[in-house]
């Protein structure tokens, strides 16, 4: 018997009761949730997926934004591994990431542990440490350029002079330029890392520390056997995100060093930018971008495996 409905929506849903339409019932029920996701999915598609696909297509081309591109097949992928500057940029980026991620983690964890012990002004301190992250990178770079000046009276040189170290040319020395960028980037981002660690510390049940204390464990043993293992998800998150973010080093190079001295602070993304906008080599820049994407994916996978196994 056919039932009729004045309400068309109810009528449509009624159709789904028919045995042949049963398979679509799940989808229909979920439609409204997909509709909520649609704006984000559109945004993701337009601003993430399409550029990545387009970059992949461009990586098989030669030429630039202004004069246009021509198809050259995999030639860019062959040439790039013989490009000394690309290898230098890769080495610099790896070196910088190896320095910055563990240093930032160590410093931020230390700070988080300190803040966690604070009885008063905890929120005020949290706001203060988060402020550099909220500031624009440009004024921060101007300030740090002044801190890094190589004269004896430069602020940083004054501080190191107190412990007997002679004045250093922080941004002008190939040996010191990347550690200087590390210092800048840790100072800029430690607020976020510290807050994430604070969040992680907050999830550790207090009762575990109390039980450990009862069993005679020292604070160091509690830290080693309770805090660190239970912070593993936080470490994994920060390690993965840290590598992803810092492998894309660009701001500090652009504002502090312009890739110098020599090519000592040339990063991959900086080289990509220079090729795309200054050298009219968009295809080549896209090739390096795609290679960077795969490198980050591989490193992320390895990190997850390594940290999860441990």
């Amino acid at each position, binding site marked *: 018997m056919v039932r009729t409905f004045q309400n068309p929506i109810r009528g449509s849903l009624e159709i789904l009761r028919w045995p042949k339409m049963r398979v679509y019932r799940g989808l229909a029920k979920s439609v409204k949730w997909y509709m909520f996701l649609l704006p984000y999915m559109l945004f993701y598609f337009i601003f993430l997926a399409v550029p990545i696909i387009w970059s992949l297509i461009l990586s098989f081309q030669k030429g*630039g*934004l*202004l*004069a*246009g591109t021509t198809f050259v097949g995999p030639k860019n992928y062959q040439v790039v591994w013989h490009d000394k500057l690309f290898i230098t940029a890769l080495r610099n980026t790896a070196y910088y990431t190896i320095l910055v991620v563990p240093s930032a983690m160590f410093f931020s964890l230390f700070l988080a542990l300190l803040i966690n012990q604070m009885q008063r002004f905890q929120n005020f301190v949290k706001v203060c440490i988060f402020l550099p992250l909220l500031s624009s990178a440009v004024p921060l770079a101007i300030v740090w*350029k002044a801190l*890094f*000046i*190589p*004269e*004896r009276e430069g602020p940083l040189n004054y501080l190191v002079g107190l412990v007997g170290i002679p004045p250093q*040319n922080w*941004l*002008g*020395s*190939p040996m010191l330029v990347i550690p200087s960028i590390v210092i800048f980037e840790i100072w800029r981002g430690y607020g976020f890392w510290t807050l994430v660690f604070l969040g992680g510390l907050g999830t550790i049940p207090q009762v575990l520390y109390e039980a450990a204390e009862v069993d005679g464990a020292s604070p160091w043993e509690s830290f080693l056997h309770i805090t660190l293992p239970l912070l593993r998800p936080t470490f994994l998150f920060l390690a993965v995100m840290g590598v992803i973010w810092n492998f894309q080093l660009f701001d500090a190079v652009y504002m502090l060093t*312009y*890739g*110098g*001295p*020599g*090519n000592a602070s040339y990063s991959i993304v900086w080289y990509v930018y*220079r090729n795309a*906008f*200054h*050298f*009219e*080599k968009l295809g080549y820049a896209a090739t390096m971008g795609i290679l960077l994407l795969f490198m980050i994916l591989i490193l992320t996978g390895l990190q997850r495996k390594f940290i999860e196994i441990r």
Partner: protein
Amino acid sequence: MIRWKKWILLALVVCVGVFILGTIANAKVTVTLWKASHGADPKIMPPILKAFEEANPDIKVDFLSHPWEGWDERYTMAFVAETPPDVSYMPDEFWPKFAVAGLLAKFDELFPEDLDVMKKDYPDAFWRLTKFRGHQYGVPYLWVAIVLFYNEDIFDKAGLTYPPSDTKDPYFPKWTWDEFVRVAKALTNPDKDQWGYAWSAAFRDPNYLYPFFYQAGTDVLDIEKNRAAFDGPEGIKAFQFMVDLVHKYKVVPADGMHPRFHEVFYEGKAAMGPVESYSVVVIRTQYPELKVGAAFNPQGPGVDFHSGRGGFGNSGYWVMAKACENKDAAWKLINWLTTKENGQTFCDGVGLFGCRNDFGPDPKEPLYKVFWDSTPFLPGYPLHPRLRQAHSLIMAEAQEAVLLEKTPDQAIKDAAAAVNAALQE
């Protein structure tokens, strides 16, 4: 029921009619104008443009003054998106790549008669730089130079003669690289943080490097052969002199890699330093107690190339986008901007020099005279779409040489190889 629909329809018709009439009444042509700011542009340009609009009531100018940072990205994306500015200011090292891509209007095809008249107002040196591969793309507007400035107090305390600021000065023919080094050494005292020459290789542009090439007797690029010109003994001499200033004579601060070497001079810690024409305003306003003089560059061994006293100089041009829809209106604007009166107003306001024959240094500022007098010694940039890539390749090798990571010989060879590879692409 029907009545309200009638009223809505009537209201719609009235709105559309008003809109159409308004559009017809305001049928002005809009010309977009972009210029990277030389400091006082937001203050100086609007009155010039307002006067243009009053003289041309059917033309409206939409002016954008923007910072130099991000210049490439801004203009590249504007041209690629087919929304370029109708008229823009482009220095000589920037515009050839747009011309090669066919994105700039060819003035020799659009306004040949006007160019024949205009040409008489400009020296050949600037007019020549408006042409690329047989077509004219720009109208000269501004030029910039770097000459040697000296700190009068430091020279007075040491009892030394100021470097020459007049070609008739008896000291002028004796002002050579050797004499420059002698004076710089005499005025260097690292213990008192005083340096003979405020210079650094840690600079993103080669403005402070290329004069060594010129004074040694070579240019940067050989445009006809499309290759590096500096890979001979002259280029090696240039790099060697640069390295010697840092490591042999030790007259330069921070081992030649100071990130803010201008401030070393402005703060009175250096006897001499290279200073741009537009920095005179900075010195006068921010460092009024600094007593300075301007002098010619010392003569290097390359006496056959601009008398061995070559210095940095480059120029900027008004160009028009090929996609400009109102080329006649845009051309009128370019003509307006490059009149003597408007050009001089702008130049005096920002401390730059105009390219026209009838321009002269601002008599109120005596330091400008040396810049003008040094124009015979300025080779200017070679026009090439890959010039900026060549800059960064040469700068990187210069820095490696100053850091003693390579010998000057090796650095020149590597720089030339990299530049030649880039130019052939």
